[in-house]
């Protein structure tokens, strides 16, 4: 492929005590593509996400993002480099307003310290105004600008998922990791979500890696699909290639199939 990779994992393994969750993963994500990551429950998909975002440290192997080594860095160090994520079980700041949730995303792009906050200097005000403007853009992008003053926990399930995406987008990422974004959504909401994900890639030029169980969604949206099973990457390719891969079929349907 002519495009150069934005994220490269080589020989990445991760174990929890004696349990090997991921084994010798080689994986690349190219700029501005949409990659689907699938696999049965417990295959290690979310673990891989947690390694990319710094929530876990890989036991072995190297992860490079934008030609910088990121394994061993903490989440708060990785996010400013341009990786943002959503969570499988929505993790919003429930008591905060919708707008404040998105403003938190701007945290790593703002600088105001204690002195600036207390004195409310012109610089602080300007920065705050800019952050607010940016946050509102993200909210209108996911169609939630009218709910900006609503408490996050009062939003409907689908809206909460969208808010989580807006919050992640507010960190100005280059790579967005979506952990089961369609989980719990009805077919209509899923179609809207597919549109939204495409827009994020096309309009914002953000690369996307998504974990998803909804096969219609994964196959419909991904340009490339990677399959994990028992901590190993068993297949990688276009949706058609993966769908016809015997090992993948076996992983999903069992040995006899």
């Amino acid at each position, binding site marked *: 492929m002519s495009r150069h990779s934005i994220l490269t994992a080589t020989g990445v393994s991760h174990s929890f005590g004696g349990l090997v969750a991921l084994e010798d993963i080689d994986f690349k994500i190219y700029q501005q593509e949409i990659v689907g990551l699938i696999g049965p429950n417990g295959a290690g998909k979310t673990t891989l996400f947690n390694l990319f975002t710094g929530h876990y440290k890989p036991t072995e192997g190297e992860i490079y993002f934008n030609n910088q080594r990121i394994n061993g860095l903490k989440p708060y160090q990785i996010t400013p480099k341009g990786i943002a994520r959503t*969570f499988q079980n929505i993790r919003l*700041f429930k008591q905060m*307003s919708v707008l404040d949730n998105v403003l938190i995303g701007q945290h790593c792009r703002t600088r*105001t310290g*204690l002195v600036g*906050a207390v004195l409310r200097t012109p610089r602080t005000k300007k920065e*705050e105004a800019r*952050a607010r403007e940016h946050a509102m853009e993200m909210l209108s992008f996911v169609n939630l600008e009218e709910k900006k003053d609503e408490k996050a926990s009062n939003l409907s399930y689908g809206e909460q998922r969208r808010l989580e995406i807006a919050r992640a987008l507010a960190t100005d990422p280059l790579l967005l990791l979506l952990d089961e974004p369609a989980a719990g959504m009805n077919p209509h909401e899923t179609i809207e979500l597919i549109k939204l994900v495409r827009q994020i890639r096309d309009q914002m030029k953000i690369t996307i890696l998504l974990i998803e169980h909804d096969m219609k969604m994964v196959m419909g949206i991904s340009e490339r699909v990677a399959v994990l099973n028992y901590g190993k990457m068993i297949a990688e390719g276009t949706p058609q290639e993966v769908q016809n891969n015997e090992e993948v079929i076996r992983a999903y349907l069992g040995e006899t199939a």
Partner: protein
Amino acid sequence: MISPYYLQLIILVGINTIMALSLNLIIGYTGQLSIGHAAFMSLGAYCSALLTLHFNLPFIVSLLGGALFAAFFGILIGIPTLKLKGDYLAIATLGFGEIVRIVCLNLEITGGAVGLRGIPKKTTLLWVVLAVLITAFILNRIIKSRIGRALIAIREDETAADAMGINSTYYKILCFGVGAFFAGLGGGLFAHYMRFLHPKSFDFMKSIEQLCMVVLGGLGNMWGSFVGATILTVVPEMLRSVADLRLLIYGAVLILMMRVRPQGILGESPANGGFKNNSYSQWIQTRLKKSLRKRSGSDKT
């Protein structure tokens, strides 16, 4: 003008408000359960008293010295303990509080078990009112800034806060430092009002009392801290005749609050609220606006 008795009550309400406000930053906004807040108060109290006694420094310098001394320990205790969560942090802060108390009890410079005597009386109503206003102003500004949002995000979901690029350890230490600073300020005012310090005044029960003020008023609500501090300062005074029952009443109030109104008397102010957005201040604001409108209206006519 004001009888000495009421003056003392008002001053104590003020000092307790500073304590409750600063503790609220730690517990109510950042969600870190600290039950050693009286220790920071005692550090500020002893340090500022000693600065006044030995170096005869101006009051403001002693106060700031005490506050900075407490803040230093707030940061120091924060570094090893803030990786702990919930109950574990509570126990660590409890241990810290006891260490401070026992050290003060055994050091010569603090007067040991006899206590520290002869501190000049410098705290006046004006000092206390100013200190309360400055504390409230600064904490409110912090809460309504990017830093305050980060603190509340940590309370709401630390994992998600990390993922948003918030260095939660840094902000927790910052919040402990700021909280301890103002607790130390309250301690300095207390020392120069009481003129006598004894480690007993800053024991575990004192920390619990301050915790009660925050919980009673409402976690994460600045006005609540004021209300809680006022009630828990004035009511015990009125119950002086049944002093032995005071702790029992504290306990009962806590249980009752948790059962009936866990969000405190005023409740948590809406998202990211400091003083504004809160029904009480909104009420004041609309009142003000109305009267202003009336005045400008009558001017026109």
